[in-house]
């Protein structure tokens, strides 16, 4: 049972690296878990996902105003670019950079397009991260039970 969960976890993580969801920074993050317990990873990814979700929603609100405050939108994506780089969320980080490029041009349409891409990418990422967390916890629970 544990071996199966470990296999699934490895396959998921390797796939995420291969598809560009994650980069080598994620390795660094994982290495910070102590004694095999995924507590830190779970907490960090939980904070990242909740905070990202919040900021994407607030950016969407700003972009739907009649007069868009591009500086504020850019500030959100500057933060998101930073936090996604910190956890190794590679492809999502790239979409954040696209939004910032559009903000630079004060181009509402391309900003909205880039925002939608970022939301989509984040949705795909967080789905996978949630599965990863469950598998990590299953693997650890079995190891701890031994």
């Amino acid at each position, binding site marked *: 049972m544990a071996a199966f969960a470990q296999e699934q976890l490895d396959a998921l993580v390797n796939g995420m690296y291969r598809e560009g969801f994650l980069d080598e920074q994620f390795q660094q993050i994982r290495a*910070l878990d102590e004694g095999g317990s995924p507590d*830190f990873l779970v907490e*960090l990814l939980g*904070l990242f996902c909740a905070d990202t979700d919040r900021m994407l929603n607030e950016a969407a609100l700003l972009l739907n105003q009649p007069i868009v405050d591009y500086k504020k939108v850019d500030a959100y994506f500057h933060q998101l670019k930073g*936090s996604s780089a*910190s*956890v*190794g969320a590679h492809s999502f980080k790239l979409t954040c950079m696209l939004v910032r490029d559009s903000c630079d041009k004060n181009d509402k349409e391309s900003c909205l397009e880039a925002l939608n891409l970022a939301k989509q990418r984040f949705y795909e990422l967080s789905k996978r991260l949630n599965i990863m967390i469950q598998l990590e916890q299953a693997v650890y629970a079995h190891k701890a039970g031994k």
Partner: protein
Amino acid sequence: MTIAADAPRFHVLAVDDSITDRKLIERLLKTSSYQVTVVDSVSKALQFLGLLEDGTTATPPGQKEVDVNLIITDYCMPEMTGYDLLKKIKESSLLKDIPVVIMSSENVPSRINRCLEEGADEFFLKPVQLSDMKKLRPHILKGKSMDSNESTSTPSSSSKKKSSNEGILPEWTKTRLNLPWSFLSYFSSSTCNY
């Protein structure tokens, strides 16, 4: 995490407005055996350090004297930046000897130089790595030896930042302030991640 009972644990104050980065830096520091306090803004950092708006120092009532061995701060933050925090610390006679490390996700040469000239001891490009934590200890130990030197030798007279920095900054830093480009290649090879 087990630590030898009598090993001193240095206290690091970390400042970052990003919740993700705060979690990460806290973990990196704890893994490296530091005692950590994390705050989300420069104003909270100043409050913690007992530094008032006008630059004078006052320990908040009910709080015992703060003993911080190093401050590590993000550069880009709303309201006050890491640079603003650095300036306030270097302007405070009580806090100026605490080593300050600046972190930034952006590799901007003028920014790096500005921070170093203001007295920052180190500049980390984000994302910060566990290996970067090893670079903190020499600054803390140097800061501690400054404290003991000042208590035994004649007090330094100048309150100017630049001349007080000359005593603190090692030779290599002074040279690098004149040669920003060679300095930048030192950092980009160790921390650049893009």
